[in-house]
């Protein structure tokens, strides 16, 4: 039983890498989010450790305990300190992720169940299906709209996620540090084909920007 549980650990951890993992960031914004994830994990681990130690102590010989120290010292102040630190970190990172300052603007339009994108190309603005083209190494603001229900734009390796809501336009900043192909998906359940509502983001070398795009995009 123990062996089986141990053997399962690498299997479970292998879910932490790959193109849809927040923990293998490929840009500064996603990197911030990954840091925050690790900070939250460390905080949660500290609190869990405290609880485990208390449970372990409970199995020992009955003894006098300094109730005030445990209830207020650990139960209140220690927990509050961990929460405050992680909250401050989240606020700080949240501010850094906001679309302040200039950025290239591209449009993403969602519908059941696909994405289309509009961006600057060599022949003016070009529309593609299922593939978003961006330059690497600089911030890009994705302007999100939807024509039917609420969808959500998420490229885990490049940034946070943002809803695409019918009747309004939302703005999400993403950035790729290096050229490459990154995977994105709809992160808000939107109907039967929600799971297949995927797309790709191709980050181009800044020297080759804007790329030669055709109407068809290049999704296989």
């Amino acid at each position, binding site marked *: 039983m123990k062996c089986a549980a141990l053997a399962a650990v690498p299997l479970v951890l292998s879910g932490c890498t790959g193109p849809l993992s927040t923990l293998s960031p490929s840009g500064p914004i996603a990197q911030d989010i990954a840091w925050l994830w690790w900070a939250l994990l460390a905080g949660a681990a500290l609190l869990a450790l405290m609880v485990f130690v208390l449970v372990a102590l409970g199995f020992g010989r009955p003894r006098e305990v300094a109730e005030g120290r445990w209830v207020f010292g650990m139960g209140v102040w220690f927990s509050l300190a961990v929460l*405050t630190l992680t*909250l401050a970190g989240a*606020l700080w990172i*949240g*501010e850094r992720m*906001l679309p302040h300052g200039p950025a290239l603007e591209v449009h993403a339009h969602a519908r059941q169940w696909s994405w289309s994108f509009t961006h600057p190309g060599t022949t003016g603005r070009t529309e593609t299906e299922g593939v978003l083209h961006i330059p690497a190494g600089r911030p890009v603001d994705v302007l999100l709209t939807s024509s039917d229900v609420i969808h959500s734009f998420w490229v885990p390796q490049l940034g946070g996620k943002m809803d695409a809501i019918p009747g309004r336009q939302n703005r999400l900043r993403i950035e790729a540090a290096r050229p490459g192909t990154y995977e994105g998906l709809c992160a808000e359940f939107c109907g039967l084909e929600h799971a297949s509502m995927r797309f790709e983001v191709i980050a181009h070398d800044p020297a080759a920007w804007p790329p030669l795009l055709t109407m068809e995009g290049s999704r296989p």
Partner: protein
Amino acid sequence: MRQVGGMVWLGWLIAGPTAWAGAFSVAYGLHGLGCELGWPALDVGPLSLQRMAIALPSLAAILLCLVLLSRVKATLGPEAGLPRLGLWIGLIATLYTMAPVLVATSC
């Protein structure tokens, strides 16, 4: 154990957390409204109307907790212990949850 009208005591007990919950709900509503109406751009003294609209209900909740704290001993006598703790929890929770409003980007 002395009985101080069960329901009245219960009211005192939940007064603090209720004040926090009330302030939080009002601030939540005003926050969405303010983002839609462009309140962050309107200055009211040192703060934007947006921050003011969120801070004022919190200030009211904090004042309410302080007033009740000053009276809890006189009203409940020996049964004041837990309600006093509840009021402190309401006061600190309000401070804690509303403080970021003064620094973070709102909309």
